[in-house]
């Protein structure tokens, strides 16, 4: 490695052909491994749903139907068949990518779920971007200024991390929507209906969901930066006259990015879970609120479709994290 390489922060590897091949193999391996994973999770969900007490037929017909009506509906939906036979026909359709229609409408369960993905993804991706930009900025600031400012930022990060999100959401709504009337109290506008409206409908929920993650990203960034700045190679760079800014952002931050990336990935998946609460508070039509309603009405096909897409989403996110990780840290690729 030459001195000019060091100055520019370039390392050999990431762009080389060998690196790309390794990453390609990683992607392929992960996708193949996802097949048995999806099968196992879908099977588990299938039986768990049917072993949970509750009859979708009562949900469809209410409590004023006759016994004959319930039986007729059960036959119509195929619920009178033995469970294993139901399972194998479910599996047969699943292989063709079909999880069936919602029990409460003529729409395919896949469509019902896909309708809900944009709101949840906008929310989770928005909150992730906020937590990365805000968290890294705050973390770097705190790492570089070790005095009172640094401590204040750290305390702020801990507070941000500890505020319950549903409470924060209610406070933000009452300030920005009910009192100042700057933003809508709740609801979602799709991006193709009105990009401005989409943005406005997401500001409060994204901030609510992203704040805690921002706090933990800030703390992680600060810790990793402090550690990186203490390393020998930083001293060498400094002795060679590399500027403070270049050291902080090109060298120390890139090193610190490795644990932060892992954290962001874990946080993103966690956000899909927290979305259940945020979507309720802000009345967003996302997969969290769909999961609540589908579970309470025993809409089996929609639950299956939800679990399928969430599993795939988690697989893809983990894969993206691994790719970024191996790009940041060539050692991982060799292993």
């Amino acid at each position, binding site marked *: 490695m030459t001195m000019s390489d060091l100055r520019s922060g370039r390392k050999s590897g990431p762009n080389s052909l060998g690196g790309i091949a390794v990453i390609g193999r990683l992607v392929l391996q992960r996708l193949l491994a996802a097949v048995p994973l999806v099968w196992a999770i879908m099977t588990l969900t299938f039986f768990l749903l049917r072993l*949970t*007490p*509750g*009859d979708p037929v*009562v*949900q*469809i*017909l*209410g*409590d*004023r*139907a*006759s*016994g004959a*009506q319930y039986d*007729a*509906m059960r036959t*119509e939906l195929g619920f009178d068949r033995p469970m294993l036979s139901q399972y194998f026909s479910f599996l047969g359709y699943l292989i063709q990518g079909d999880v069936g229609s919602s029990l*409460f*409408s*003529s*729409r395919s369960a896949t469509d*019902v779920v896909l*309708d809900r993905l944009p709101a949840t993804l906008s929310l989770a991706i928005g909150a992730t971007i906020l937590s990365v*930009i*805000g968290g890294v*900025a705050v973390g770097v*600031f705190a790492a*570089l200024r070790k005095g009172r400012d640094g401590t204040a930022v750290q305390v702020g990060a801990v507070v941000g991390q500890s505020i319950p999100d549903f409470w924060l959401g*209610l406070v933000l*709504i009452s300030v920005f*929507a*009910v009192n100042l*009337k*700057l933003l*809508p*109290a*709740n*609801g*979602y506008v*799709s991006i193709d209906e*009105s*990009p*401005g*409206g989409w*943005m*406005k409908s997401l*500001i409060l929920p994204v901030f609510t969901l992203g704040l805690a993650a921002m706090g933990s990203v800030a703390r992680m960034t600060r810790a990793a930066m402090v550690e990186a700045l203490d390393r020998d190679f930083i001293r060498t760079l400094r002795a060679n006259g590399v500027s*403070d*800014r270049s050291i902080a952002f090109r060298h120390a931050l890139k090193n610190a990015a490795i644990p932060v990336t892992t954290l962001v990935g874990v946080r993103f998946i966690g956000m899909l879970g927290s979305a259940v609460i945020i979507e*309720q*508070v*802000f*009345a967003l*039509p996302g997969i969290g*609120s*769909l999961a*609540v*309603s589908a579970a309470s009405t*025993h809409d089996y096909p929609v639950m299956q479709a939800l679990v399928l897409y969430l599993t795939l989403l988690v697989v893809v996110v983990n894969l993206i994290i691994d790719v970024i990780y191996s790009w940041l840290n060539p050692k991982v690729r060799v292993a």
Partner: protein
Amino acid sequence: MRRKTFIGALAGILALSMGACSGGSDDGSTAKATLTMGNALAPQSLDPVKSNPGDSLPYLWLAYDSLVRVGPDGSLEPGLATKWAYSDNNTTFELSLRPSLKFSDGEPLDAAAVKANFDRAMTINGPVSSTWSAVKSTEVVDDTTVRVHLSKPMPALPTALSQNYGMMVSPAAFDKPDLDQAPVGAGPYTLDASGTVQNDHYTFVPNKQYYDQGAIHYKKITMRVIADFTAILQAVQAGDADAGKGNPDSATTAKKAGLEVLSEPTDSTGLMLYDRTGALVPALGDVRVRQALNYAIDREQMVETILKGYGTPTSQFIAKGMEGYDPALSEAYSYDPAKAKALLKEAGYEKGFTLPILSRPTDATVVQAIGEYFKAIGVTVKIVTASPAGLASDTIEGGHAAAWQPWGMTNTYLDMQTLLTKDSPRNPEHSVDAEMISLLDRGAGEDDQARNATFQQLSKRMTEQAWFVPVFTADALGIVAADTVKNAAMTPHVIMPNIIGWQPE
């Protein structure tokens, strides 16, 4: 230097987010000829015979109107039909339509179309099918007159025709696979698919074929689904919605904030004593014990604390405004623990007994309060939490002596039919009282006035036999921004209003 860069970056981020705040205020703000309403639930289906009544009704009424309308005082008024009458001891029913009605797709809504709808209803297995089970055949008398033949006396058709069964679907759309999402009716509005996201918001625009164009007051009505009552209230407070469904907590807050609160008595709540035969809890087999339970509860107090005053105490199962309601019976069991204890003693349960009560997890505190009242007369309550399947599902399965649950009423005959007959799902322990059944059957064939008297006797019998411990009738609540809507009112006997009559301020 470093500090300046950082502050610069922060300022940049702030500026960006402020820009996002102010951007997009261009939308909205045409003359307020639009109405946005917050509903707690989405319609189960927009095909009326496949949908439950209750929360689905306001959506369905916009798209379909109904043959019969419920007036502000709860009486039945002409809708798409102008008049109707029973004959042959309530086994024949005749209905006259307004002339030259049309569906939104341009098809005629004449007697043939009504017959087609009535016939279709006989073939569909839906949440309200039991209402239609007495219909034997239908016939077209002339262009605007339809006759319905019933297999037994059934006095509830006009009520049924004010709800789901009075909503006419264009016969040309019967086989449309997406009828449950894209209604084709004869109501004042039609669903605008481009402004609709199923289960989130539904946009309705005027139906140019509607017979009374003067009754269309809005260019656009948006029905939003907001599951949380606090969120509905916040949407109205923020000006995002003009009105919405409320509950006692949100209505109390709304009133303090200067919003208009609409209320109309609807569902009652209390203890269903399913085990009147005493098979599960022997004590319940004794009428004196069931009466003692009725005397043990301070209903006024329950209304104040649980409903924040939005309700009425009652010890009568049949709700106010329904056939057979007798005001005197609502106070039949005043709060009297001493009398309750005396009755228990008489029945040989001086030392009390244990009563398991099935209830929803959300009702735990209410049932604990009931438990305190019962403890005072020596009866120990064991709370049985409903399974995730839901209370309805659990009770239908049977094996529960008592359950704390709400009940709505649409029509006394229909409701008692599903409540008192031996094999009805709402009578899971199959109790039978010959007198109740004979009064119910007698009322079925009588004219309105005689039936009301007969059903009052039925109500008396039910109250005396104490098959239930009714506690209160809750108000259905609506929250309205009074400066944007006039003529807003709830519709009697349903939990959601028919908003066709609402107008912009």
